[in-house]
């Protein structure tokens, strides 16, 4: 049980920055999930814009205002517009497709979960000062 507590510790009481960060991070994460999970490509693009805005907010929170504005300028102005244009110019090609994803989805999820878990372990171990750190790259 000790190990489980160490691996998944309880969160502390948030400060103001944390209070801003938590909804922003949640927004960003949800949008990121929507980007890859929503079946509608246009919704993907909108979610991507949301994610990018969220990331810009994270930058602003990290006191990198210039980077935040650049993120909006470059990503939202240019890349999102480009992507939306591309979606609209090639629209109709996915209608009637049996699946939005290919057959390797399961394997990919397995791999990603394993990597995420190991990363989590690494992060937690560093935090809990257990001598189990591994030199990942």
């Amino acid at each position, binding site marked *: 049980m000790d*190990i489980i507590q160490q691996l998944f510790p309880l969160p502390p009481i948030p400060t103001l920055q944390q209070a801003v960060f938590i909804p922003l991070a949640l927004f960003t994460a949800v949008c990121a999930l929507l980007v890859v999970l929503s079946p509608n490509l246009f919704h993907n693009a909108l979610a991507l814009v949301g994610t990018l805005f969220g990331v810009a907010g994270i930058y602003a929170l990290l006191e990198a205002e210039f980077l935040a504005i650049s993120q909006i300028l470059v990503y939202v102005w240019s890349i999102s517009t480009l992507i939306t244009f591309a979606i609209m110019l090639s629209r109709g090609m996915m209608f009637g497709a049996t699946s939005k994803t*290919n057959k*390797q989805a399961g*394997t*990919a999820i*397995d*791999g*990603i979960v*394993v*990597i995420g878990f*190991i990363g989590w*372990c690494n992060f937690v*171990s560093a935090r809990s000062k257990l001598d*189990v750190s*591994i*030199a*990942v790259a």
Partner: protein
Amino acid sequence: MQGFLNLAWLVPVPTFLAFAAIVLFANRNKTVSALIAIGGAVLSFLLSWPIAFSAFTADHFGQHPVEAQLFSIPTGTSDLWIGYQVDPANALMLFMSSFLLVMIFIYASGYMTFPAHLSPATYPIAAAQGKDPRYSRFMAYISLFATGMMGLVVSNSLLTFFIFWEIMGLCSYLLIGFWYEKKSAQAASIKAFMTTRVGDVFMLVGLMFLYIHSQSGNLLFSDILSAENLHHLATLSVTVPLINVTVPWVAPIAILIFFGTVGKSAQFPLHVWLPDAMEGPTPVSAMIHAATMVSAGVFLLVRMFPLFATAGEVAPGTMHFVAFIGAFTALFASTIAIAQWDIKRVLAYSTISQLGYMVAAIGIGAYVPALFHLITHAFFKALLFLGSGSVIHGVEHGLHHVHEHGHHDEPAPGGEHGGKEGHTPTEAAGHGHTGLVIHRKDGDLNLEDPQDMRNMGGLLSRMPRTGWTFIIGGLALSGFPLTAGFWSKDEILGNAWGGGNTLVFGALVISAFLTAFYTARQIGLTFLGKPRTEMAKHAPESVPSMTWPLILITPFALLLGFIGTPWGNWIEGFMEPYIEHLEFHALHVEFSFIPMLVSIVVAVGGLVAGYYVYGQGLAEGQVDPLRNWLGPLWLVFHNKYWIDEFYKGTVVAFSHWLSKVLYWFDDLWVIDPIVDGIGQLGVWLARLAAEFDRLVVDGLVNLAGWLSNRAGGILRNTQDGQVQVYLLLLVVSMTVWLLLKALPIFLKLV
């Protein structure tokens, strides 16, 4: 004016450019071709005469001749130098040949009408134009020929001399066989080529010996004819194999080079090609046999005179041999000439005879008179040849006229007509003349042959310009006093007499008499008396482009001799400094009236005798009066001593036999079977190797390929071209690697 001398190398260039231009661009248009060819010749002439006259007018020109190298071609250890040279000898040659070439070119442009032996149906366009179908080609050939001659004249080394010499040989072959539809022309061209080749091979051998044994290491005239080099050659001795005689090297070299002259200038053993070469168009005859090619042989002797003179000093037999060949040829050819019916053939033998004169003059050391006679002879012989061509042309036209108006009794031959009698029954039969040929013991007569003098007669009134110029040329040839031929011939006779060469003198005097006689015979049969055939009656005068050259050459034939009179010998004064420049002394004899008187007597006597016999022409069907007097000897003369037949029986037959033997040896039984056997063995071995290759080597290679193929087939499944699969592989590998790395943690945790 001296500046012109350095332009000598340009002299052969215009004609060569004309040749190239005609071959490459103008060969579709006959008029343009003729204009280009004549333009080239005229340019060449316009270069040559200033050069020649600046040489003539220069003070003591012979002592500082112009010689320069243009460029060199590196060949192995030595260089082949290409350059030019102007000295008195080739200044005179330039003077003579360039003028005559222009005249001949102009004459040829008018002469080359549609030939009678061709069918107009075969060449409709050429027939409509009235020009020879290969007119342009002819112009190109004669341009190249002129290039050869001019290049030979200005060349400064024996090697380039020889190269141009061979160019002329090639051109003479092409031109003699120009009308190759005629079997006789084919045969004549091959004969000319092969015969001169015999002489050229000897000459080439001589050239090689000269090159090897000279100190200079090259063949420049200035080097090989220098006194030291000749002295060196004279002291270097060699034992001639077979006859085991030890002589200085200079003698065999001189003899070998002399054989080149024998071939080119048609001296006695190799003279047979020249009369046959009359098969070519008449301008060619004029060019080859009068102005240029045969002169080149004598010019070679003149050029190499120091060598011969040295040879004559250390081995007198050399010069005696040359003199003997020359004198014998002169006499021998003139005897044949008195018994010929063909108008050009008479002139051909006359040429041989006159060349014999020159060679004999060289042989007795009379170097200047030889060149003098060469120049004058070129003029009047060109005149005679061109005149004879004009006569033939006229008679041919007369024949056409007869056919068109039906005056002739006999049925008109279909298609081909004209031409001339064949040398052999085969050739005659080949031309379909059998029905017209009258067999006679003094030579078969073809009634439509425009070259046979028996078909002529009384042409002077029909063709006055041709006739008179021909008569003047004939007088010059026979040495009628005060004409060009008289002075030059007199010089030679005088030198022979003064040098004490009695035998040579005698032979030449007899020959001179015979010359005058056959000239009178020719004139008489052709121009005097009454026409013996219908075609002679209707023969018209030739076109101006043919008669004008005749008229233009005539003054030279008459007056050119005055440059070499015994009292004011300009040519000797011009030439002698040169030979002295080369540290030699030409034969110099005191003037004597005896040879001159003899010369006048034989010339006038011969002419009078000839006029007496032939002055009224022959009656139709009449046998030659001379035959009655000479009897069988006449037949000997007429049949040219049967030398052709003799050659055919010996040399040609031997060649045939030898080739048959060699064929048997090579193709049938010995060489080829061996080669075939080796080949069969090779094939068998190759089959064996092929089997090995197919089974073992190919098997291995195929095995390797098959293995690669299979391996690739297995591995290709991993390369399905989908980027995402590759990416997934990356992720999975990463995962596995991370798991392995994280294993210790889990072990510790658990």
